[in-house]
């Protein structure tokens, strides 16, 4: 007898559809074009971060230092412009810092063979500490008038659609192209699925791992620039927040297994939509902060439980490195 099997992605999509339907029927002002755009706009930075995280997770790694890459290089741009440097020079410096940071991460993981969780935990602290101790005067780096024009990256709209949504869309296309249309993307999947087999078949796995972390850091920096432009400042203390858990949540909820080798951009988009819909609906309902956390927790638990109920794990389905 053939059983109908759903995977996590489909379950989460069903949860999203159900939530969306319920909110549309019962919540006045939810299903309006303006609110839909707001919903997307509010989670676009989270979505971009999700894409960055997806790349390393597919390659069977994790990047806890992503929020440091989001906070420090863009913070440096704002600080340098404030101190009188030109915008292009500041952007270039930040990009170089980000690439150097990605290289350090990648080298530690690919060549020194430190587990990605510990390596990025340490480097993230290092970069955030460097920012706090040496680069920034204050935790919140303010926008300076000399950067006017650049805020269009995160504010205003093009063809009626807020720019941060465009940025998310562009990031989606770039990452999808990288993962599905290039040889490097195929290598990332191969390494994530089975790193030993990948190496045996002649894939340059170490350089590809380094590349993953460099790209992830660069996307993280891009997300940071969008965020800074959107709120007219860079609150670098965001490194201490729980944002990294939200990012991992988006990735895992969307159905990209932490064991690597599976999933893609669509999963990140679905994960982002679920989080966005929940946040937006609860804000409209003016649910208290504690209540929001409770509901978020319950919905996520339900999604995870349903998954393990419908797709039980055993020796056959479990992969090495599965968390």
């Amino acid at each position, binding site marked *: 007898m053939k059983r109908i099997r759903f995977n996590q992605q489909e379950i989460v999509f069903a949860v999203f559809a159900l939530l969306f339907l319920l909110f549309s029927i019962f919540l006045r002002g939810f299903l309006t074009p*303006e609110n839909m755009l707001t919903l997307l706009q509010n989670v676009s930075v989270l979505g971009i971060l999700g894409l960055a995280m997806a790349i390393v997770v597919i390659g069977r790694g994790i990047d806890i230092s992503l929020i440091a890459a989001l906070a420090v290089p863009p913070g440096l741009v704002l600080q340098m412009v404030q101190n009188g440097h030109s915008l292009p020079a500041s952007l270039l410096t930040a990009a170089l810092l980000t690439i150097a940071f990605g290289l350090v991460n990648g080298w530690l993981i690919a060549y020194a063979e430190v587990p990605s969780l510990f390596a990025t935990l340490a480097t993230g602290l290092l970069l955030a500490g460097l920012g706090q101790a040496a680069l920034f005067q204050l935790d919140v780096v*303010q926008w300076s008038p000399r950067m006017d024009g650049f805020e269009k990256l995160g504010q205003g709209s093009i063809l009626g659609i807020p720019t941060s949504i465009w940025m998310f869309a562009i990031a989606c296309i770039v990452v999808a192209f990288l993962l599905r249309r290039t040889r490097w993307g195929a290598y990332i999947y191969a390494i994530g699925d089975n790193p030993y087999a990948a190496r045996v078949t002649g894939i340059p796995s170490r350089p590809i791992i380094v590349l993953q972390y460099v790209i992830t850091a660069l996307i993280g920096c891009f997300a940071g620039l969008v965020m800074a432009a959107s*709120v007219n400042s860079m609150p670098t203390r965001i490194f201490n927040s729980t944002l990294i858990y939200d990012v991992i949540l988006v990735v895992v909820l969307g159905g990209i297994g932490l064991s690597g080798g599976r999933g893609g951009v669509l999963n990140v988009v679905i994960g982002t939509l679920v989080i966005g819909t929940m946040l937006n609906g609860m804000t409209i309902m003016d649910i208290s902060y504690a209540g929001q956390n409770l509901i978020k927790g319950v919905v996520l638990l339900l999604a995870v439980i349903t998954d393990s109920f419908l797709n039980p794990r055993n020796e056959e389905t479990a992969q090495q490195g599965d968390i």
Partner: protein
Amino acid sequence: MKHFGATKTLAAALSLAAMTAPALAQQGLDEPFQKPFKDALAGKTVAYVPVAMNFDLTEGWYAGLKKELEPFGVKFVIRDANWNTNAGAQAVTSLISEKPAVMVVHNPDVQTYAKLLQRAENEGIYVIQINMGSAYRSSAFVGANWVEIGERQTEGVVKACEGKSNKIAIIQGALSAAASAYTLKGVENVLAKHPEIKVVSSQAADWDAAKAKAITQTVLKQNPDLCGIVGFWDGMDIGTAAAVKEAGLTGKVFVATSGGGERKGACELVKSGAFDLNMSYDVPTQAAQMAGTIKWLLSSGVKPGSVKGSEYTTLIPITKENADSQMACWNLSDLKK
């Protein structure tokens, strides 16, 4: 007295000599109290425990205190809790055994340090609490009255709402922070007197500008006729203001907030129209008051914990009218000079 007598004799002798050399008659008179004051301060240690360094308030207090006290030979130690309540409690505990003369403490909440601060004063350390008091009242509390801040911000918003929709939103800080809860009490006090005002949203944004922006955007889409927003901290309400600006409602939605009055974070943003009212607790004045209190306590020699008092800050409402003035705001870089 002996010293004084000698001076007198000398003065008399000199007045005789003055007949021939008038310039010598201008000999000074020693002020008897300044030396004990100097002795009381020289070499003393002041320990400073902020919830975190690197933001305008704590950097400003530190710079202000240093400027006032270091010339008298006072030494400073910082124990940066870096947003970690446990680390802060440990810092206070180890300071008690290190016995500085004074501890300047910025509480993360009402309870955590309360017992420790009491112990410190029993051990002979003066404790000054800044901006966020604990349940224990020590030698001095210097800081803002959060309830008053909430009241005055809300009064501003209510006034701006006259003849409009009367719909307002509240963007709170972190739920666990007492400063946020006290401010909310102030908001409630005023709203109780104005039943016509309808609160369409009251949510916590965790002192996070991005969250504040997200909440404000959603609220504005649902209530485009909103007439005012009460925000709880200017560092977070940059996001609130960005949402208002993006919705094209700057000037139509009255944004009230509060903060330490640093020029970039307060006056510049009021001038640009992002904020309509910023209740400032003027950090340099608070630092000067703390320094004054430390001078008084050290020179008085009173037993720590035997006198207790409060110095609530006189708030400066920053609006378009005074945002240009030199006095309304301060620069961290200038304070550090």
